C-alpha cells in the first residue's frame, strides 16, 4: 500500500511522517525545506504501508519544482491514499490546497494538525467538516504523537465519498466539454486535466500537445477567452477565486473564530526583533552569541580529537598520538613507506575529518534551533534589502557570516536557500570569506611584519574580502548566476518552541552526511597530499626535495611576480589541505620567527596574505562544495575563481607598490 503525505509547507508533515514511520528525517520550521522525496515504511494491522513525504506546497500549479513533483507523483505513482496534513491554526489557506487535491485524487484523509494552536483561534466542528467533504477528518498534535493511531486507522478503514469542488455553471459547462474532447487521449484524472487545459497550465499544455491534442488546445483557448470575457478577469485569478470561495465557505461553515484581533505572543516578539532600531543589532547579537557558542564549545572537542590523533609537542619532548603509535606498530609487518602512507596520509586525514564534526554538529544545532523556532524567517525579513543587491534573499546572510568561522558548515548551510541559482551563487562566494583558520594565519603573519598595528592589517583583509564578496555577488547575480527571479513570497510562521527530537534529527543528518560523503573525499585527498609530500621516498616530509618542493622550485619564477618565496609557495600548497598549517610549514621551513621576518619584506608578506585570502578553498571545503552541488564543473569553477582573485589582488598590490617604490 502506498500513502503520500501532502500539505502546505510548515504544517508538520515531516513530524507526522516521522511519527508514522519512525524514520529519521529533518523537522524544520521553514517553508519549503523538504525539497526531495522522503520515503519510509510502517505496518498497519498487518499491511505493509510505504509512506512518502511530498514537498510542501501552497497549490499545485506548474510554476515551482515542488508543485510539479507533488502533482506528478500523485498522477504517476497513484498512491492508494493521500494524507493532507493541514495546519488547523491556518485553516482557510490550507483548505485551498485540499480543493486542488480533491481534483486529483478521491481517497484523501484530512489531518487537522497543530490542533493545540488552532483551539486558541477558533472552535472547529470536525464532524461537520467530515460530513461536508465526504472524507475522513481527524485532529492531531504531531509533536506529541496525538492522532497518529486514528490516522493509521483511517488510512486502512476510511470511507471516501468526496465532494466535488464545483465551479459556476458557465465554467462547469466548458470543463465538461473539454472532458469529452480529451476522452480519446485517455488521460486520467480527466476532470483535472480538463481544468488544467482550461487554465492553460504549461505542463499539461505540453503533454496534450505531445499526445496530438492541438485541436483540443485550440478549442480550449476559445473557451478560456469566453470565460475571461464573462467574468472580466484572467483565467488564473478566476479559477483560483472559485476554488478559494469553496475553501472560504467551508472554513466559515466549520470554524467559529474566538479571540479576534487580540495581540499574539508572536506579534510581541516580532515587535522587538524586527524593531526599526533594535532589529538589526539584535540580529547581530544573536549571530555573535551563536558564533561564540559554536566555536567556543567546539574548540576543546577539536583539540581533544587533534591530541588523540597527532599527539602533542611539549618542551620536554613529543607525546605520541594515534598516528605515531599506529605508524610504529605497523612498521613491524610492512615497509616504512606503506605504514607512512596509511598513517601519515590516510589516518591523519581521518583525524582532520573528525575535527570538523564538533563544529558541524553544534552549528546545525544552532541553525535548526533558529529555523524551527521561526527566527530564520525573520532574518530573511530583516536582511532582504541588503542581500537582494547581491542576488540573494535575506537568509543568504547566514552562510556568509558562518564563513568567518569555517567554510565547510557554511557551505552546508546554503541549503536554507531554496532557489538553486541562489544557492550556487552563495556557495561560489562563500570561500572568499576568510575562515577562522585563515584569520589565524593572518594574525600571526601581521604580528611578525606589522608589529605596530597588526589589527589594522587584519581588518584591511577582512574588509577587502567583504567588498569583494559584495561586488562579485552583484556581478554574478547580473550575469552567470542570474536567477529567473522566483518571486520571494515568504511566510512568517508563528514562533514555536523547537522540539529536541526535531533538532537532534536535523543535527545528526547533517553530520552523518558530512562524515560519510565529504569525509571520504578528504581522506582521499590526504592520501594524495602524502604522495607528493613524502615522495621520492627518503626525503624530508614536504622538504624542497619532495615532489611538492620540486614543484615549488619549478613554479618559483612565477611566484616572484607576486612576491612569493618558494617556501611561501610550499606553505600555500599545504594550506590547500588545511589553512592553519601554513604557519607550521613556514615555521618548519624557515626555522624561526626571525628567519621568517628576514626572508620577506612586509610588502611581500602582505602580498602573500592577499594571495592566501582568496586562493583555492581547502580540501574539506571543496569536498563539501562537490557534495552539495554534485558538480565537478562548478567545484572547478570555485577553484579557478579563487586563484584568479588571488593572482589579481596580489599581483596588482605587489607591482603597484614596486612601481611606486613604497616600502614599509
Amino acid at each position, binding site marked *: 500500500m502506498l500513502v503520500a503525505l501532502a500539505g502546505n509547507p510548515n504544517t508538520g508533515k515531516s513530524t507526522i511522517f516521522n511519527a508514522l514511520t519512525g524514520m529519521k528525517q529533518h523537522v524544520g520550521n521553514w517553508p519549503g525545506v523538504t525539497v526531495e522525496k522522503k520515503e519510509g515504511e510502517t505496518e498497519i494491522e498487518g499491511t505493509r504501508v510505504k509512506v512518502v513525504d511530498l514537498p510542501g506546497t*501552497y*497549490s499545485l*500549479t506548474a*510554476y*515551482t519544482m515542488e508543485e510539479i513533483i507533488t502533482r506528478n507523483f500523485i498522477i504517476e505513482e497513484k498512491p492508494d491514499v493521500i494524507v493532507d496534513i493541514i495546519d488547523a491554526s*491556518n*485553516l*482557510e*489557506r490550507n483548505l*485551498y490546497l485540499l480543493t486542488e487535491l480533491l481534483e486529483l485524487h478521491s481517497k484523501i484523509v484530512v489531518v487537522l494538525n497543530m490542533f493545540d494552536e488552532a483551539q486558541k*483561534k477558533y472552535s472547529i466542528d470536525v464532524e461537520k467538516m467530515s460530513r461536508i467533504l465526504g472524507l475522513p477528518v481527524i485532529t492531531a498534535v504531531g509533536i506529541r504523537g496525538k492522532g497518529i493511531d486514528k490516522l493509521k486507522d483511517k488510512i486502512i478503514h476510511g470511507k471516501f465519498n468526496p465532494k466535488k469542488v464545483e465551479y459556476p455553471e458557465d465554467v462547469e459547462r466548458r470543463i465538461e466539454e473539454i472532458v469529452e474532447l480529451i476522452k480519446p487521449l485517455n488521460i486520467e484524472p480527466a476532470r483535472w486535466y480538463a481544468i488544467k487545459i482550461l487554465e492553460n497550465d504549461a505542463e499539461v499544455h505540453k503533454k496534450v500537445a505531445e499526445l496530438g491534442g492541438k485541436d483540443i488546445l485550440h478549442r480550449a483557448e476559445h473557451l478560456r477567452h469566453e470565460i475571461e470575457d464573462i467574468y472580466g*478577469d*484572467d483565467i*488564473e*485569478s478566476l479559477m*483560483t*477565486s472559485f476554488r*478559494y470561495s469553496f475553501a472560504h*465557505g467551508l*472554513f*466559515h*461553515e466549520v470554524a467559529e*473564530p*474566538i479571540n*479576534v*484581533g487580540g495581540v499574539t505572543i508572536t506579534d510581541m516578539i*516580532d515587535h522587538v526583533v*524586527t*524593531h*526599526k*532600531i533594535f*532589529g*538589526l543589532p539584535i540580529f547581530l547579537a544573536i549571530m555573535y552569541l551563536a558564533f561564540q557558542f559554536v566555536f567556543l564549545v567546539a574548540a576543546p572537542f577539536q583539540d581533544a580529537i587533534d591530541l588523540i590523533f597527532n599527539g602533542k609537542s611539549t618542551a620536554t619532548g613529543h607525546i605520541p598520538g594515534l598516528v605515531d603509535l599506529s605508524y610504529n606498530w605497523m612498521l613491524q609487518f610492512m615497509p616504512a613507506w606503506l605504514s607512512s602512507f596509511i598513517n601519515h596520509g590516510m589516518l591523519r586525514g581521518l583525524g582532520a575529518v573528525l575535527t570538523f564534526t564538533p563544529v558541524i554538529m553544534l552549528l546545525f544545532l544552532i541553525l535548526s534551533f533558529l529555523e524551527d523556532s521561526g527566527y530564520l*524567517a525573520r532574518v*530573511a*525579513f*530583516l*536582511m*532582504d*534589502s*541588503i542581500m*537582494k543587491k547581491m542576488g540573494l534573499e535575506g537568509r543568504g546572510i547566514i552562510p556568509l557570516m558562518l564563513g568567518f568561522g569555517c567554510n565547510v558548515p557554511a557551505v552546508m548551510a546554503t541549503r536554507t536557500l531554496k532557489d538553486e541559482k541562489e544557492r550556487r551563487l552563495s556557495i561560489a562566494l562563500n570561500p572568499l570569506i576568510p575562515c577562522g583558520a585563515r584569520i589565524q594565519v593572518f594574525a600571526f603573519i601581521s604580528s611578525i611584519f606589522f608589529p605596530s598595528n597588526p589589527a589594522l592589517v587584519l581588518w584591511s583583509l577582512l574588509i577587502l574580502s567583504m567588498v569583494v564578496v559584495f561586488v562579485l555577488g552583484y556581478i554574478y547575480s547580473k550575469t552567470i548566476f542570474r536567477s529567473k527571479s*522566483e*518571486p*520571494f*513570497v*515568504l*511566510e*512568517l*510562521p508563528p514562533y514555536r518552541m523547537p522540539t529536541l527530537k526535531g533538532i537532534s534529527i536535523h543535527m545528526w543528518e547533517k553530520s552523518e552526511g558530512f562524515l560519510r560523503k565529504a569525509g571520504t573525499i578528504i581522506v582521499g585527498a590526504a592520501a594524495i597530499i602524502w604522495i607528493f609530500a613524502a615522495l621520492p621516498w627518503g626525503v624530508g616530509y614536504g622538504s624542497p626535495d619532495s615532489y611538492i618542493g620540486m614543484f615549488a622550485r619549478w613554479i618559483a619564477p612565477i611566484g616572484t611576480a607576486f612576491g612569493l618565496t618558494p617556501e611561501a609557495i610550499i606553505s600555500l600548497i599545504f594550506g590547500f589541505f588545511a589553512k592553519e598549517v601554513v604557519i607550521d610549514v613556514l615555521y618548519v621551513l624557515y626555522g624561526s620567527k626571525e628567519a621568517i621576518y628576514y626572508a620577506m619584506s612586509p610588502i611581500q608578506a602582505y602580498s602573500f596574505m592577499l594571495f592566501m585570502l582568496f586562493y583555492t578553498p581547502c580540501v574539506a571545503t571543496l569536498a563539501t562544495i562537490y557534495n552539495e552541488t554534485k558538480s565537478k564543473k562548478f567545484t572547478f569553477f570555485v577553484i579557478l575563481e579563487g586563484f584568479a582573485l588571488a593572482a589579481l589582488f596580489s599581483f596588482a598590490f605587489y607591482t603597484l607598490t614596486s612601481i611606486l617604490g613604497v616600502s614599509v
Partner: protein
Amino acid sequence: MLLSELKPGEYGIVKKIKGTGALHRRLLSMGLLPGAIVRVVRISPLGDPVEYEIRGFFISLRKQEASFVEVDKVTPLSFIPRNSDVRVVFIDGGVGFVQNMGAMGIAVGKRLKIIAPCCPMQVKTEKGVFTLGRGMAYRVFVR
C-alpha cells in the same frame, strides 16, 4: 491604490492582482484574491520588504511585488471614531455571520453612524441602534 502604498496598521481590500506568471500565481494561491482583506503589519527596518497579514497568516512581500496588487483602502468598524458616517464595504465571515449582521442593517453598501466607539460600540443603522462587540466590529470593514 497599490498595496505597496498602504502604511503599517492600514487595511486594504484587494481589487486585482496584475501581471502573469509565477508571482501572479503565487500571490493568488496565498489567497491574495479580489475581495480579500490585507493588513499592513510592519516594514522591515531597512525599508523593504513589508509584512502583511492575510486570512489570518503572515507573509513578507518586497515592495516591488506588492505593487502588483491593487487595493482599496478600508478600515475595520472597530477603529472608527464617534459621530462618523461610514459605508460598509466588506463583511468578513460566513453566511451565518453575514445574515446576523444583515438583520441589524449592517450589509455591504449600507450607511452607518457611530454613536459610541469600540468596544463595545454602538452604531445607528437604518434598522435602529445596535451594540456590537469587538469580535463583530472587527470583522466589518467600512470606508
